[in-house]
């Protein structure tokens, strides 16, 4: 029994020590807030400090969390308001929480959320205020944004002010390529050349394509569809599997199946997670990876020593598409809820908050190479090599369009991607997969 007491005391002591260490290490945040971001110059301090409830996706372990927290602090210092921040990381559960909050009347005052079909429930319920109404009171609201790039909801109005967008393109591991004697693809990369390169890479013992068909076939899907159509037609949605668009989708799926049957995907692509296959790429065992702008910081954090091995290149094209055409856009934005708008004190605070977060200066701390709606563009400081490579590649991009998967209902999207693994193994034909998905749209 004495031993137990001792053991328990030891554990308690460890806990106490870690508590103290935790406290000591946090004199109000261990990242020095050297410059808490610019305050908004034209805000007079309001009469009494307002408490603003904010929900964004910049919480948890989002790559931009620190920039976000700094920006919020800047706002608080400038206006004297306090922000109750309940941000999370963007995933299905977070979406469900947000939607439920609106349902039960506990929604926040400012919300940073998707502007695609995901936002339809709250827009249709009239729970958020459209930009035109806000501009009636605050004419300079989002004046630094290009209106043409604001997301348009199903009723034709704009509701959200965009922050930084994203792009999707091809990452290549130059070390693997050089070892196989394959040239780094340029903006004129053809599909046939790509197939030949993959075979060379495979013969050399590497994995050509890093992709988990089980978890994330999303990016290959988008580009394969574009390869069977044109950039401008990317957002067409099939009414059923038999029409032209449906056939385009089926052709795209069959392209993926072709790659699978040739063995260009990892051996365990149907049982690996995205994290595992990205690791293959990062470790220099795979050559090609289609991913998005958010992954740049991921490589900086997790594969810093081999950062020089990666560059951004172009997804091979066939048919009418050019390899210099990519997927991108702005999919999330700041909404002001009706709840906050109807409260005069909060109205002012909310508007100031959004203006602050979408100001040129604050945006520059978030944005590196992504698309923005800013009229003057963002001016990020100090790009790391991979970001520089992305910027270089982006210079040759001739066209960008949003992903069609964001334009269909979440059920349709989920069904479609869950069926990819069945299509590639022949368990289901591409047409059946498309039909099953469209039925849920």
């Amino acid at each position, binding site marked *: 029994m004495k031993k137990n007491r001792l053991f328990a005391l030891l554990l308690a002591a*460890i806990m106490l020590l870690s508590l103290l260490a935790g406290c000591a290490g946090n004199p109000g945040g261990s990242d020095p807030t050297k410059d808490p971001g610019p305050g908004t110059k034209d805000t007079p301090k309001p009469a009494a400090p307002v408490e603003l409830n904010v929900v964004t996706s910049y919480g948890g372990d989002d790559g931009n969390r620190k920039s976000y927290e700094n920006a919020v602090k800047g706002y608080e210092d400038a206006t004297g308001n306090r922000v109750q921040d309940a941000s999370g990381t963007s995933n299905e559960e977070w979406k469900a929480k947000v939607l439920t909050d609106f349902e039960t*009347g506990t929604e926040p005052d400012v919300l940073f959320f998707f502007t695609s079909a995901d936002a339809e429930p709250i827009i249709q319920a009239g729970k958020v205020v459209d930009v035109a109404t806000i501009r009636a009171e605050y004419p300079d609201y989002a004046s630094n944004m290009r209106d043409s790039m604001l997301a348009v909801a199903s009723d034709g109005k704009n509701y959200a002010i965009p922050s930084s967008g994203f792009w999707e393109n091809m990452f290549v591991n130059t070390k693997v390529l050089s070892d196989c004697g394959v040239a780094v693809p340029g903006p004129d990369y053809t599909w046939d050349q790509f197939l030949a390169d993959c075979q060379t890479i495979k013969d050399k013992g590497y994995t050509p394509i890093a992709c988990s068909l089980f978890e994330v076939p999303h990016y290959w899907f988008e580009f394969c569809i574009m390869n069977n159509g044109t950039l401008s037609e990317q957002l067409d949605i099939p009414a059923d599997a038999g029409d032209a668009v449906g056939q385009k989708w089926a052709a795209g799926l069959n392209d993926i199946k072709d790659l699978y049957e040739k063995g260009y995907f990892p051996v365990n692509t149907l049982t690996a997670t995205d994290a595992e296959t990205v690791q293959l790429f990062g470790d220099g065992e795979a050559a090609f990876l289609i991913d998005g702008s958010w992954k740049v910081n991921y490589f900086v954090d997790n594969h810093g020593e081999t950062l020089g091995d990666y560059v951004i290149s172009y997804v091979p094209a066939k048919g009418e598409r050019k390899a210099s055409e990519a997927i991108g856009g702005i999919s999330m934005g700041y909404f002001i809820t009706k709840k906050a708008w109807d409260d005069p004190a909060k109205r002012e605070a909310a508007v100031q908050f959004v203006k602050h977060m979408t100001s040129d200066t604050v945006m520059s701390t978030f944005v590196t190479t992504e698309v923005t709606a800013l009229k003057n563009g963002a001016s990020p400081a100090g790009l790391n090599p991979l970001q520089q490579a992305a910027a270089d590649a982006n210079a040759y991009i001739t066209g960008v369009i949003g992903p069609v998967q964001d334009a269909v209902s979440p059920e349709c999207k989920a069904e479609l991607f869950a069926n990819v693994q069945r299509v590639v193994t022949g368990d289901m034909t591409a047409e059946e997969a498309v039909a099953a998905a469209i039925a849920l749209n």
Partner: protein
Amino acid sequence: MGKKITPAKACTYVVLSVWALTTLYPFVWVILNSFREKGLIRKDSFSLPLPGSGFTMDNYAKAMDRFDFANAYLNSLIVSVSVTVVVVILAGLAAYGLVRYRFKLRGVCYSLIMAGMMFPVFSTIIPVFRMEAAWGIASSGNRWLSLLAVILPQIAGNLCFATIVLMGFIESVPIELEESAYVDGCHVFQVYFHIIMPAVKSSFATVAIFSFLWSYNDLFTQNFFLRVPKEKTITLLLNEISSQAGVDYGLMAASVVLIVIPVLAVYVMLQKHIIKGLTAGAVKG
């Protein structure tokens, strides 16, 4: 008895030790990897991280580099201790009532509790959220109310399990003692507190441990109700920062260790109640 070790005894120890190794090893593995540089974990996760060859305290520094770290421990403790205490009290009462009394709805009640144990938490979470939002305790912005919003469903969730387990134990207590107490003039509450409870003390300890543990580790409910950093529990906080990216194994390992320490402390403290002989004296003819 004799000090010689029979083959049977030796065999016993071998079997027990083998299993102990399998349960201990993962824990040791997690601790070792929490001190390992994150890049090395995937390549070399099963060796010893010595200083100079992969040893680092970075993972712990990163895990504790959050605004509300100590607060989170406090929140976890508040929630789990409250849940445990209430569950033990209520489940004990309910189990006793169901075991000893004969009444018409007895079978129905038992089936209800059994059914209650089957409800997956995700199917009840949204109606519960709506209900608590209507009462004003969910998403209220007030830390104590939010913690309460988590405590209440967790109590309900653990009650079914606790009641079932306690029923099993109470049933094994011979009834003669209670009857003789009745003859001596005790009424039923005195019987419960002075005879039943001491007799199944170790069962209460068991139920307490598991309730504490499940409340502590219950990510789902906590995730749904606790939004603002100062409300979050330690499991939530550390899970957030370590599970999304999926590859910072060092950070995850450090998070696991930090989460696990209080629970082990509780278990070790309660464990001494689950020892042989405590009950021997209680049942005399």
